[in-house]
């Protein structure tokens, strides 16, 4: 299979080829590994390529298939994991230097589930360290480039997941989304990417950014593939007390339903100043497509939107400051130098964290400090409740909320280097979804004049991934 074919390969197609034995998993895996080897020097989508694991699993699946064993639809299909997921015996860095060389002794639940499905792990993808970034430029292992145009960023923080799928380095990837980290690279790379409901997929074994926001979800070439992978990931986990009991639906079989009569709300706060005109035009076009499919598109209001970014960052950095405290260089990761423990820990954290991580640790520590917690952390939690109310109320009016995924087109690499706040604001449309906990799906809506993709974000109530997957799929089929 050549790169052009690999670039377009979907789970449905691949699984048919494998099942009919027209293609072996070893052949598919080897072809994919060859493309990765060829592309990586430029794109830098992977931190670790697990070539041996991939070929061993592929071989095992081929053997099982030869024995006519009943296999999962994902069996033999190459995928990648954002490098936040622990995989036993494999380096897990979260994109951060401080964890370089840390070989995890255990598997994340996501990986346990993938292994059980006999999917083939290609490797661990690059990301902004600890998920701190919207562009993929802030990894301790170098920036990832967008294969559509290597002068541009692929979006972040699951940058390698997005970029690798663009160049054919796998059929799907599992990203992690704390404020847009799946949806943003999906949008910038022209992919479908799902931020699941908080508690839908186990977080166990995923190095955390902000514990109350972090969600695990698939990125793939189309909505159907996303739905298929979700079926394999969703569910309660005894190792994650925050996973929910809501029923796991057969998402991929619910895509064909007509969306006629469905109400889709476009929040006016997301279509104000600062929205790129090409993005706006693409959203208007998408709204027309929905109308043509029989859906009703109306304007709604999410009045607390303007406070979302501030509240998001106060809570997110607070949790981060605590989550990253365990990185003291004592038990794992790079070692610190110095005569005392305090000197060692200062050294290790000084050299192991990048500026963005230090910035967030400082902001979060401040927000939680005695005398400030009331006006920052607690106030932000109050805003979070109001944001939730905004969404709950909106969902009494509409079935789905539709917004642009990103307010801007993908920037060039290095474009926002000197302005961290601008990067924080780029997340404006994705971040409010995480404190609320609802699911959000990014679906490509078209291309800008420069050839870079644009995506829309579809948001549904808690645990209703089925609705946005259905709407996204219907849209995708219509514009295909």
């Amino acid at each position, binding site marked *: 299979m050549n790169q052009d074919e690999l670039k377009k390969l979907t789970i449905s197609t691949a699984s048919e080829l494998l099942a009919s034995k027209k293609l072996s998993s070893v052949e598919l895996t080897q072809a994919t590994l060859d493309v990765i080897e060829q592309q990586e020097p430029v794109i830098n989508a992977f931190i670790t390529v697990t070539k041996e694991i991939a070929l061993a699993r592929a071989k095992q699946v081929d053997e099982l298939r030869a024995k006519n064993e009943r296999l999962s639809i994902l069996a033999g299909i190459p995928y990648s994991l954002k490098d936040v997921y622990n995989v036993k015996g494999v380096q897990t860095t979260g994109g951060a230097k401080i964890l370089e060389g840390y070989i995890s002794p255990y598997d994340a639940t996501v990986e346990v589930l993938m292994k059980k499905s006999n999917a083939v792990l290609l490797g661990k993808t690059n990301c902004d360290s600890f998920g701190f970034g919207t562009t993929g430029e802030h990894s301790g292992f170098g920036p990832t480039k967008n294969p559509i145009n290597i002068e541009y960023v692929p979006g972040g923080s699951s940058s390698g997941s997005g970029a690798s799928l663009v160049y054919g380095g796998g059929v799907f990837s599992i990203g992690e989304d704390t404020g847009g980290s799946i949806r943003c690279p999906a949008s910038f790379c022209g992919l479908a990417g799902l931020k699941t409901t908080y508690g839908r997929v186990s977080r166990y074994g995923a190095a955390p950014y902000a*514990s109350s926001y972090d969600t695990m979800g698939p990125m793939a070439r189309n909505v159907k593939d996303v739905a298929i992978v979700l079926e394999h990931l969703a569910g309660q986990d005894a190792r994650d007390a925050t996973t929910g009991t809501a029923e796991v639906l057969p998402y991929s079989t619910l895509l064909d339903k007509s969306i006629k009569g469905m109400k889709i709300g476009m929040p006016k706060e997301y279509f104000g100043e600062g929205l790129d005109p090409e993005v706006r035009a693409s959203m208007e076009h998408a709204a027309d497509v929905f109308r043509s499919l029989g859906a009703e598109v109306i304007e709604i209001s999410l009045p607390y939107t303007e406070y979302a970014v501030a509240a998001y960052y106060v809570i997110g950095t607070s949790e981060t400051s605590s989550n990253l405290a365990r990185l003291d260089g004592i038990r794992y990761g790079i070692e610190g130098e110095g005569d005392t423990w305090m000197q060692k820990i200062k050294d290790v954290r000084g050299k192991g964290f990048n500026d963005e991580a230090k910035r967030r640790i400082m902001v979060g520590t401040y927000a939680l400090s005695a005398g400030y*917690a009331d006006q920052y952390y607690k106030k932000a939690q109050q805003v979070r409740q109001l944001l939730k109310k905004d969404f709950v109320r909106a969902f009494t009016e509409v079935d789905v909320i539709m917004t642009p995924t990103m307010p801007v087109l993908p920037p060039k690499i290095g474009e926002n280097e000197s302005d961290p706040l601008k990067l924080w604001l780029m997340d404006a449309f994705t971040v409010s979804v995480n404190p609320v906990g609802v699911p959000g799906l990014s679906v490509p809506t078209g291309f800008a004049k420069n050839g870079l993709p644009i995506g829309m974000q579809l948001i549904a109530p808690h645990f209703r991934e089925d609705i946005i997957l259905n709407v996204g799929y219907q849209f995708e089929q219509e514009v295909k």
Partner: protein
Amino acid sequence: MVYELIIGLEIHIHAKTKSKMFCRCDAKYFSAPPNSHVCPVCLGLPGALPVPNKKAIEQCIKLSLALGCNINKFSKFDRKNYFYPDLPKGYQISQYDLPFGYEGNVEIESTAGTKSIRITRVHMEEDTGKSIHSGAKTMLDFNKSGVPLVEVVTEPDFREIKDVTFFAKRLRQTVKYIGVSDADMEKGQMRFEVNMSLRKVGEAALPKYKVEVKNIGSISVLEKVIAYELKRQSELLDKGETPVQETRGLRDLTGVTHSQRIKEESNDYRYFPEPDIPPITFTDEQIFANRETMCELPTDKKARYMKNCGLDSALAETLIATKGRAEWFEQAIEGVTDNKVVSQIAKWFVGDVIAFMNANKVKLAQLKLSHEMLRELVELLNLGKISSTIAKQILPEMLETGKKASVIVKEKGLEVVNDEGAINEIVKKVIAANPKVLEDMKKNPAAYKFLIGQVMKEMQGKANPQVVDKAILEALQEK
């Protein structure tokens, strides 16, 4: 100057559970090889998540109820953030503003009668790992990391050392009774922290300073620490100085404390709700069920023994020392309606039986003496079939062999002699040997009682003491 003690306690108790607080590791780490009871969760590896141990929470609720606390029906865990090498996550999962139990009350027996000690809170947290210092090196053992701890905090209500001792012992007893912990001090399962200051007698306001002494591993050291601090702080106050607000530590078991950390430098723990664990709610039914299934507490047992059985405080206290002991006693008095008999059984049990057990290192479960056997012994005594001397004499054999009193008495011919003829003969002999008795009786009419002992001795304790008493008086009257 004489000062009054102002003391509050914080007690950490290892809750008895199979697994640790937030992971599935075996909680029984004592004497296990270092770092053999660890997993990604209790080692604080990236991505590992805590899942609270239901049993541990139940234990905390139980102890809260036993200490008369209210239960927060909506509760949560919080993160207490600080850096330390043996704290693997850089924070400890604890409870901040919504502890499981709050505002309790414990009655203790003090000099002036019963005294109330207010319980501020009872909360749940995880233990840290252990730093082992060896020369310039420090080694870390994470076996203890994540072991469930229940922390009890009292108000500063203690005014006397012995009140602290009484409370500490009663608390230890209580947790063992209700099965919350083995409270084995040698294994570090119960540790004390004292918050202490002094004020002039008669002053009402709390002093402006407070000295904290952490990590006290036994009740006797706890007493020594307070005595030492009382002296140290008194001397400072006498000189017109205010003791420094600080944390002090111990280097040995003498009770001598050393300055460790000045309070002003204390950490800002930046508490916030643990996002990895959803809030925990309890229904009235759940709380009620915990209350209903709880065994009778030592304090209640003691009060019942005193009120219903007419036992004195000291005897009752000895009987309730352990739950097993109290249970043994309760089975021994089953069906006994006469409080005099209950009291006799209690005394024989507490005196001779427990003394035998202590001397021979015999546990209750290994005891060959059955409840029925002790009851029978007392019954034979009360029926006048054996004398107390004989009872005392045969009890060790009963304990050693498990033979019934009636059997031993029969085998050895130890029945009480009621034969007045035989008794009179010995009485005469004894009076003849002790001519001074009549003289002595003029000063003390009971002086003749001495002769009873002599007669009993002559008759190897087998004579019926009442018959002997009568015979002596009659014989003396004849003189």
